């Protein structure tokens, strides 16, 4: 069998592309704006999952109270992030695939993805104890006709170190606000939405996003990633291949004996490349490569879920469930190697962006998580030759 050349990329530019729009909750610069360059492919316009046309993201962030934990009262450090693959997802399904490098967590709808290979709900990311609340809030979006309804997709990670998780402060109105406020364009990162109370590699984690756009000769497709990062051991953290975590052994969460540092990550991949479900499952598997590059080994305590969907084929639900079938476009399987690389790079950069967006946060019982010390991190990267000049003209 003839095997084609899978990837065509431009020579690695020495200038990192800058994105002047402030997209972090705290107004911090993104990694790429500071000269960090992950991988060799170019990002899309926003370097965000919203570079895939039709994809919209909205957050509702809940931060309230300080002091001792009082279950049901606070302090609250949580929220919900909503992703519309496209606004009509409950009527026009999209192919999707999932991969679960370690399943000590929850993402509803993965059985549907495995059984039917379709996505028919917006996706929501939140905390562990709010899964049921968010699931209930998404369920009424399904059309109430005689066709089978879709399964809401809700993923979780554990924010109990900072948040009154047992109080379940995410309610239906927050889900509706996140869905209604969702938009294309820049995506706010860091301590927002479902990522509000999350910890990654012992630093403040949360929401991160990135994208990659292939050259026209490789299809011109875009792959976008969004993560809710709540995973990783400090000493394993790598940024662009540099063992940054090993060099920053202070600034650990306090009190350190009460924090679980393995925890979990949710990874969402979107693409406009026409892929079918089985190939989207393969794409989702490449998210793990991006995750691993940042130092994660998907610890035993982790609920690491990757879900990939393609916006290129819309499947009307009537045709999906009944009638004479429907047509789908598909990239030839031996042409999707570049998409795999794009997926890995976008996930890796999304995680790094989540870290760069994080600022110090004090939560329940005075528990404290520090943001990544940016200047120290940049110094380490510079020392290892992994900091590039920033081209502010792009």
């Amino acid at each position, binding site marked *: 069998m003839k095997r084609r050349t899978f990837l065509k990329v431009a020579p690695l530019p020495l200038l990192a592309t800058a994105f002047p729009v402030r997209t972090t909750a705290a107004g911090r610069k993104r990694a790429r704006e500071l000269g960090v360059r992950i991988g060799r492919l170019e990002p899309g316009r926003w370097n965000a999952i919203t570079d895939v046309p039709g994809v919209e993201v909205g957050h509702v962030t809940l931060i309230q109270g300080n002091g001792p934990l009082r279950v049901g009262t606070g302090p609250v450090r949580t929220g919900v992030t909503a992703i519309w693959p496209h606004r009509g997802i409950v009527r026009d399904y999209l192919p999707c695939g999932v991969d679960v490098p370690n399943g*000590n967590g*929850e993402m509803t*709808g993965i059985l549907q993805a495995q059984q039917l290979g379709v996505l028919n709900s917006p996706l929501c990311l939140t905390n562990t*104890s709010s899964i*049921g609340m968010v699931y209930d809030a998404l369920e009424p979006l399904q059309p109430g006709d005689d066709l089978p309804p879709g*399964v809401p997709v809700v993923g979780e990670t554990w924010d109990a170190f900072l948040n009154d998780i047992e109080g379940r402060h995410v309610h239906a109105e927050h889900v509706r606000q996140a869905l209604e406020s969702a938009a294309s364009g820049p995506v706010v990162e860091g301590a927002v939405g479902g990522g509000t109370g999350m910890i990654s590699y012992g630093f403040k984690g949360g929401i991160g996003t990135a994208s990659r756009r292939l050259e026209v000769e490789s299809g011109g497709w875009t792959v976008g990633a969004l993560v809710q990062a709540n995973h990783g051991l400090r000493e394993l953290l790598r940024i662009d291949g540099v063992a940054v975590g090993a060099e920053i052994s202070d600034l650990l969460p306090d009190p350190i004996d009460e924090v679980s540092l393995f925890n979990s990550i949710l990874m969402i991949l979107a693409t406009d490349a026409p892929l079918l479900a089985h190939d989207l499952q393969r794409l989702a598997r490449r998210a793990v490569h991006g995750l691993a590059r940042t130092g994660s080994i998907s610890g035993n305590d982790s609920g690491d879920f990757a879900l990939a969907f393609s916006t290129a084929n819309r499947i009307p639900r009537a045709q999906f469930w009944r009638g004479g079938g429907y047509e789908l476009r598909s990239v030839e399987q031996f042409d999707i190697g570049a998409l795999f690389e794009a997926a890995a790079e976008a996930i890796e950069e999304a995680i790094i962006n989540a870290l760069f967006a994080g600022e110090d946060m004090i939560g329940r019982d005075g528990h404290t998580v520090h943001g990544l010390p940016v200047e120290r991190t940049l110094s380490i990267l510079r020392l290892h030759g992994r900091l590039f000049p920033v081209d502010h003209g792009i």
Partner: protein
Amino acid sequence: MVFELVETPDCSVLRCERWDAPRGRWFVAYRARHGYRWLLGNGVVDEFATVSAPLFIAPRALLGAVYNTGISLGHRRDHDMAIDLGWPPLCAGVDRPASGDAANLEKNLLDLLTATGKASGRPPFSTNVGSHAVERWQFNGEVTVIGTDAPLLPQQLARLCDTDTAPLTIALATGNRVTLQEDDRPQTLRAASEDTLTAIITALRT
């Protein structure tokens, strides 16, 4: 008996121990067929082949509320909801309308599950295979739950699931208590022979 059945008008709960039992979990397997997709909590089963919470079966429109109940029960058992202490709940949806007061489902169910006293209901099918109990429960023609106190391993439970044709089949064995070992030493588990497994399969097919 392997399972006790606890019921409200809108939710059936199969449990094999009290809600506040000491830490530990049971081996479990499931098979989904015919496009069945209304299962929450299955990620942990896929990864570890164990469960430490009761099995919840409810109208699929109530799955979120039922999952909330499982989460609340887990939090009561252990604030951090360790995998040995009730997390995550395994909740299966069936295609029938909710009948009553869904808003109070969580409170009513929690009261029932945390109360002492007799559970209701017996399995439609139960038998003994040698010294081992075997049960089969069915819900709405969609969900079958097979339980045994034989020490079946996950791959053996998967073969029990294969004896059934329902859209969702769950098989659980209480013959081994799997627990996190504080000193990290291996734990000793038992395994049933192929003869025992074959006898259970034969009994289920009779």
